[in-house]
């Protein structure tokens, strides 16, 4: 924690705790933008065309709202420097969300609109989301469940985990694992520099799947009856195949080879510079 945040925390502790509870009438398709510096953000939904803002903050902090058309902006300010506010928002189910909260854990549950979240130090946990879901953290995990959206999920130091997601996926981290379970998509790109890539999902005919890491394992659980041309590349990886893939003798020694599963409809690239590449059957993550 740097000096600015420490000062803000001390200021908040010295100021009187205060709770703000506000109801704002909004269109059902409202886009809610939240800008704050520190504190947690929790978002749930309801069927009303209103946004409820429950905020715990210091007496020196103020919460400002601005509604223009279907755009609702919620901002936290502090008279003493940095506002530290815990937000609990209840928004219409179809609301789109745009949250910028550098020092916050963000948890969103149940929304059926697009979602954009940016944190620096904090985890992002999303259940739901449709259309486009973009989640970015620097120091924190990114987790998405039950989303029907094109997903871009990225962390720098943390895991990225997608479960039960339908739609195009681009998931990456620098130092962490990318875990993709029950993802239904014909376009998946997952990458890490220092971490594993774990896939346990159906490979769709005609789909494109790219799983790339530098120093980590790539483990792919493929369903019975899958159709894919699989390209494997490595500098110094080990390979393990739990079912027959029809490799020519010596192929693994070359560290770069390809093979066809079924009719080869989908394209799959498995790359680990210095880890292991393991092809197994769908469901392995359930067993772990």
């Amino acid at each position: 924690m740097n000096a600015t945040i420490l000062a803000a925390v001390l200021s908040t502790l010295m100021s009187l705790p205060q709770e703000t509870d506000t109801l704002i009438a909004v269109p059902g398709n409202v886009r809610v933008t939240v800008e704050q510096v520190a504190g947690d953000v929790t978002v749930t939904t309801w069927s009303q065309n209103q946004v409820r803002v429950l905020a715990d903050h210091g007496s020196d902090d103020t919460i400002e709202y601005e509604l223009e058309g279907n755009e609702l902006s919620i901002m936290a300010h502090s008279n003493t420097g940095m506002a530290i506010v815990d937000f609990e928002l209840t928004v219409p189910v179809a609301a789109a969300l745009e949250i910028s909260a550098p020092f916050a854990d963000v948890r969103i549950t149940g929304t059926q609109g697009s979602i954009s979240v940016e944190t620096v130090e904090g985890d992002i946990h999303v259940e739901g989301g449709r259309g486009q879901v973009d989640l970015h953290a620097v120091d924190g995990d990114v987790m998405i469940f039950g989303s029907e959206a094109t997903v871009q999920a990225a962390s720098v130091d943390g895991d990225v985990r997608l479960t039960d997601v339908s739609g195009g996926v681009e998931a990456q981290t620098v130092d962490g694992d990318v875990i993709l379970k029950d993802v239904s998509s014909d376009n998946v790109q997952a990458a890490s520099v220092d971490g594993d890539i774990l896939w346990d999902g159906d490979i769709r005919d005609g789909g494109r799947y790219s799983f790339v890491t530098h120093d980590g394992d790539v483990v792919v659980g493929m369903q019975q009856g899958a159709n894919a041309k699989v390209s494997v590349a490595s500098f110094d990886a080990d390979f393990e195949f739990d079912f027959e893939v029809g490799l020519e003798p010596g192929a693994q020694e070359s560290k770069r080879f390809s093979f066809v599963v079924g009719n080869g409809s989908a394209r799959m690239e498995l790359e680990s510079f210095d880890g292991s590449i393991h092809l197994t059957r769908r469901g392995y993550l359930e067993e772990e």
Partner: protein
Amino acid sequence: MSDSADIWQDRLSDYLDEALEDSERSELEEHLEGCEECRETLVELREVVAQARRLVDAPPVRDLWPGIAERIRATEERERRGRSFTFSMPQLAAAAITLVALSSGIAWQAAGGFSTRQTEPAAPVAQVPAKAELLLASRIASSDYESAIAQLERVLDVGRERLDTATVRKVDEKLALIDKAIDDARQALAVDPSSAYLNRHLAGTMRRKLDLLRRTAALTEL
């Protein structure tokens, strides 16, 4: 570019590496007969590979940059139209980005790295092991890209005080992690400079470094 050409372009480096199965190689060769674009790409890919091989012992005799730059412009144009191909771009574009990344890497090193390390001496270019990459990259007039790197550094210089010290430290750690991966890839390339996979891997890793720098620069605006 037709969809089928797009699919086959992704396989051209494997074709050059003789990594395709017999049936797939036959399909590709059949496709090449009717696809001028893929034929041109294959010729240029061969040039890139041949040049990399020559550079181990001798400087290149022909600059590929104009053609590569044109390809990058075309790639960017397609990207602007909303096409997604972050990790599965055609091989020539990958090769081009490799060269651009290498070029920017040199600019990065010359500039002394991330702004938080400015008190440290700049890494001497000569310590980078892949002679071929350096020679190739040093010949590339990637002024646009180097300009972008310079702009990033200026943004970071101005905005770094707005970042939490823990964040800066974290970003530095992860940049070092990426640098290690870049070094690994370079050392591997020194052994096998014509490997399309290693070139692509190096390019991808350097892109991640640039992405991280861009994201860090953007954070200063939060």
